């Protein structure tokens, strides 16, 4: 089928989803022990979106993300230890601990970056696509954002301009049914949100967000179009948030049965099932084990890393005064 991921791509996506899941679990556990700082937004159960949507991008392509970006970071090839250390505020973190988990950026990997202002990643990627058009290169910009972010006005201003100017940008909606604690049915009048993109004449697709292959195919088509100069595309990925909004969520508003239903559709298991028959189970087990070990090693190293000293990162011009 057109735009299908190769078997290698599929294994890599499987591996990366495991990296993300284990990372989320590790931080969930640390948080319960009181060893993390600030809220952490886990994406357990949604890994297929971030990992598969970014799988066909090069390091030259740009990605912008949200407060819930771990799968996006890993998908875009950002170093796992660098992410873990940043989340832990270590000086070895990708941003030296200045950014924290919601704002990770790695320019070399085209990940610029996480964003904790809901909706802000959308014009950000659109501006990068504008830059690509002005420079005449063939880079594509992508932004992954939530159903909640789709209610912001800046979403619309951005999509309008992208469609008008045929900018090379791909919009990936990670629809997990919740904007913080409010169900999407109480944030907007329609179930699908991509109809709004269609109103600008932007090609849209709706896919099962827990099926990495489906996400990959739909997004790859849009990326190709964008790279060919045919303008923006929009993919709505339907998924669900297993964990609370963040580690500080007090819960009580998600239905346990719905969570249980969705857990039956674990994106990692779906990816694995698609591979079995093509690749031996034992080989896939090795992939999994190695991924798990990689997370453990990254976490252990990050936890042992030093916190930054303020002097290393005091800052002057254009900040007119520091301390």
């Amino acid at each position, binding site marked *: 089928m057109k735009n299908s991921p190769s078997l290698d791509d599929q294994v890599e996506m499987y591996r990366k989803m495991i990296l993300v899941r284990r990372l989320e679990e590790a931080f969930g556990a640390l948080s319960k022990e009181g060893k993390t*700082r*600030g*809220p952490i937004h886990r994406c357990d159960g949604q890994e297929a979106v971030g990992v598969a949507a970014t799988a066909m991008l090069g390091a030259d392509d740009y990605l912008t993300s949200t407060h819930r970006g771990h799968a996006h970071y890993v998908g875009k090839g950002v170093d796992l230890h660098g992410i873990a250390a940043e989340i832990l*505020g*270590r*000086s070895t*973190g990708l941003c*030296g*601990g*200045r*950014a*924290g988990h*919601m*704002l990770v950026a790695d320019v070399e990997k085209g990940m610029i970056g996480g*964003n*904790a*202002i*809901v*909706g802000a990643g959308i014009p950000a990627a659109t501006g990068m696509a504008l830059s690509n058009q002005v420079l005449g290169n063939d880079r594509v910009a992508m932004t992954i954002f939530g159903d*909640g*972010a789709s*209610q*912001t*006005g800046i979403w619309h201003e951005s999509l309008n301009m992208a469609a008008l100017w045929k900018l090379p940008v791909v919009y990936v909606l990670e629809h997990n049914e919740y*904007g*913080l*604690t*409010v169900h999407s049915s*109480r*944030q*907007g009048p329609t179930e699908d949100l991509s109809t709004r993109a269609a109103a600008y004449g932007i090609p849209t697709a709706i896919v099962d967000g827990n099926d990495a292959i489906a996400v990959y195919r739909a997004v790859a088509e849009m990326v190709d179009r964008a790279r060919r100069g045919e303008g923006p595309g929009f993919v709505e990925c339907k998924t669900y948030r297993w964990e609370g909004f963040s580690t500080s969520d*007090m819960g*009580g*508003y998600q239905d346990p049965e719905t969570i249980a239903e969705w857990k039956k559709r674990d994106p990692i298991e779906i990816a694995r099932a698609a591979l079995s028959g093509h690749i031996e189970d034992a080989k896939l087990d090795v992939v999994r084990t190695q991924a798990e070990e990689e997370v453990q090693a990254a976490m252990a190293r990050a936890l042992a890393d030093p*916190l*930054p*000293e*303020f002097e290393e*990162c005091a*800052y002057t011009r254009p*900040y*007119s*005064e*520091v*301390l």
Partner: protein
Amino acid sequence: MAKLRYAEALNTALREEMTRDPSVFLFGEDIGTYGGVFKVSKGLMEEFGEIRVRDTPISEQALTAMAVTAAMTGTRPVLEIMYADFLPLSLDALINQASIYEYIWKEQVQMPFVLRTQGGGGAGAGAQHSKALDALVAHIPGLQVVAPVTPSDARGLLKAAIRDPRPVIFLEHKLLYNTRGEVDLEDEGLIEIGKARTVTEGTDVSIFATSKMVIEAEKAATLLAADGISAEVIDLRSLRPLDAAAIQLSVAKTNHAVVVNEGWKFCGYAAEISATIMELCFDDLDAPVARVTLPDMPVPYSQPLEDAVLPNAEKIAAAARATLG
């Protein structure tokens, strides 16, 4: 007297005003079913229904504009903006709409709305969730801006704000919600907007502080007392309009002033207070007014970095000592 958490005091104020006046309604992100991310509106949707306590989409810009015109047409909206960092999204509605109508339309309208939000650092929330943007809203004519520190003031000022015929920006602080204090629930407890509160009397130096910085200033006063310095701590409480009389009285006594605000320094709220003190008390001042603020940079995430940039008791005490020469 009841001992309430700050968040509970606010919750009480909302309940009292909603019970008293059916035109009061609440809206904002996550304030309904969940009761607000800081639980300030806990239980109110159950009590007052979904029309008067409304979860909203993530649309701060329109929400603020809607608060302005809803207030103009018979209701008293109380809008929660989850973080002060999002105030820029509210600013067109505040500067180009709320600020102008009463005057420009020759007093045909009034806008009794309250915009509640919370700012400030110390929680490891990062550069986009830790700012005190007091100066942005305090700059706008036609708005009143208050920032209570004690639970009792929180209740009293919120009730006063809801009853006020004009817009009030109500600034809370994420690290205050769990602090406790006495609240006299038998008393109506209204607090007049525009009046400062003397926290500690003193004779050597006046420390004017806002929001959570009042607590740091109190601690600084203790540190200074150990050095034999008597500091007067004043909680400005009403950032706009300002209690100029209280400022003058205090500086006339101490001849030294320190201003503490958690926002940025350059063009920040502390600049206004510093300039005002200099204008009002020029002959009384023995030294320049000192400003203790966030440095002019983003709030970093990692604990040692965030600790290094936030204003605190030690920095306030050091500024007071420097002022005394």
